[in-house]
């Protein structure tokens, strides 16, 4: 069982909301687009500061994403803020055709992703989003791990002028980013050095990966911990170095084990430097339970990450 208390840490949506206001103050092109999600996307402050720049289309995700593409066509820089399951699932074709294929600089912000909605169940979980969106050309897929990385990714997204998806967590997380870090797409962060085994994690799982590495260290195993927030494009050099320099890679993500971070790493190393892997994530529709309970249920805990790393090393 996890020793982590989900009540400790930061809700990335708070940093997101503050940064959006700050960015919008500096750039009049920035508008927010939402689907009746002013509250859940923390857009109240944005609405108060820029009432004319909030486009709330109501509960209509297909229209929401199409409208965002049109706003970008008109010279604006939309941040689409909506619960991730509905943004990505309901409007997937609009994301593909209107945003990515049409190449509009729309920032798709999937709020409360993964299993953040806990007891509300699999309809409200966004665990397929990484697999769906990774398959779409031209779309960057970014999963910040903490408030600082959330802010940095948002600043990058405005400057990048390209279609991108940011996964904005609701589950509280501790700060894990080095002070003053600038976000760069295709660049992962090595948060802990070690040459026995590598743990590659994203989002809520990064702090758990660091805890797992501490547990492993107590048992004499030095784990390298990589935050691969830029799931697409992936930092190939850093991952391949880990494949070469350590005895195996464990990936951990709050998403299905098909098509997400684990798959991205496997696609890379299996072709360029095959190594043993364990892909940890969500293995099916979740039973009823809080996000914290479901992390335990699916083995997304520091103890299980450490255990799977041990098992991987033993399998050599």
């Amino acid at each position, binding site marked *: 069982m996890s020793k982590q208390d989900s009540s400790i840490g930061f809700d990335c949506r708070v940093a997101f909301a503050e940064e959006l206001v700050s960015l919008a103050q500096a750039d009049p092109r920035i*508008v927010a687009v939402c689907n009746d999600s002013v509250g859940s996307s923390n857009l109240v402050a944005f609405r108060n500061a820029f009432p*004319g*720049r909030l*486009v709330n*289309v*109501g509960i*209509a995700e*297909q*229209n*929401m*994403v*199409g*409208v*965002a*593409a*049109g*706003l*970008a*066509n*008109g*010279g*604006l820089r*939309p941040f689409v803020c909506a619960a991730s399951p509905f943004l990505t699932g309901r409007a997937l*074709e*609009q994301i593909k*055709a*209107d945003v990515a*294929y*049409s*190449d*509009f600089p729309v920032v798709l912000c999937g709020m409360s992703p993964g299993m953040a909605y806990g007891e509300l169940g699999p309809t409200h979980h966004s665990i397929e989003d990484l697999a769906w969106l990774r398959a779409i050309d031209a779309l960057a897929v970014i999963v910040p791990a903490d408030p600082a990385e959330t802010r940095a990714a948002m600043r990058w997204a405005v400057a990048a002028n390209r279609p991108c998806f940011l996964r904005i967590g609701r589950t509280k997380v501790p700060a894990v980013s080095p002070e003053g870090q600038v976000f760069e797409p295709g660049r992962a962060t090595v948060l802990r050095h070690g040459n026995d085994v590598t743990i590659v994690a994203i989002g809520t799982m990064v702090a758990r990966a660091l805890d797992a590495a501490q547990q492993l260290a107590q048992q004499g195993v030095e784990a390298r911990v990589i935050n691969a927030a830029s799931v697409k494009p992936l930092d190939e050099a850093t991952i391949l170095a880990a494949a070469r320099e350590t005895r195996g890679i464990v990936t951990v993500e709050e998403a299905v084990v098909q098509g997400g971070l684990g798959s991205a790493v496997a696609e890379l190393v299996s072709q360029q430097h095959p190594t043993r892997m364990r892909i940890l994530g969500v293995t099916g529709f979740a039973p009823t339970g809080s996000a914290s309970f479901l992390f335990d249920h699916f083995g997304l805990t520091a103890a299980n990450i450490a255990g799977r790393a041990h098992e991987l090393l033993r399998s050599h």
Partner: protein
Amino acid sequence: MVTDVLGLGEWRARRDAFDAAALAEKLSMLRTASNWIRRSILTTIEGAGLGHVGGDLSVTDILVTLFEGVLRINPAEPGWPLRDRFILSKGHCAAALYSVLAHSGYFSPERLAHFAAPLSPLNGHPNRRKVPGVETNTGPLGHGLPVGVGCATAARICAEDWRTFVVLGDGELQEGSNWEAAMYASQCDLSHLTAVVDRNRLQQGASTEDTNDLEPLADKWRSFGWETHVVDGHSHVELLAVLSRAPGDRPRAVIANTVKGKGVSFMENGVEWHHKVPSAAQVEAAIKELS
């Protein structure tokens, strides 16, 4: 693709002449342009060996009226920020759109011979990054109106007066996304947005009424809060009047009653001509009729 400067000069002269002309002359110019576009559609599709000839011919007079007589555009600067936006939501009628864009001088008509050829910018559905004059990539149905709502909202937020025109197929109104967009456009009183429905009454496999009945269509748009007009979609005088009308205080819907395959007797109202490719002999016969 690079904008064709010679074609542009021709377009400029033509638009100036159009604006200065009396109505009878304007209608004559539109008829001439429509005839050119219909011939172009037939030869373009014959050359490519694919296309959607029926819908191309039904939408022709709508596109011609917009591009020749209504849209505030500058083919020399396709990205001009203050241009009117035109979106062909029924993106499968790309051969008609490309013909109209070439006719307006966005690129040379000679390029039409490369429609759907390997690596051609002229894909079977339009791509804004490859074809000047295309505002958004359409193809899957029910996408154009939401994007058009976004364009019109951007103009409003930026306090600019450019307009947005979206041409939809009637069959694609079966996609729910259109009605999401229609509700929101009405909520925002998007007066600078016009949706034109190419009401040819046929979809891919059968009539719209035998598939998923659209009627009462005008009442539907009115009930969504749109200023709604029903016109003959092959009457340039009716199209010009309604499309060049100044914005009111509501989004505007124009149901343009059309004939699929219009202008070619053996194609008119034939459901099989949705995407059947005419033979060389059929194209010759069709062009004779248009002459």
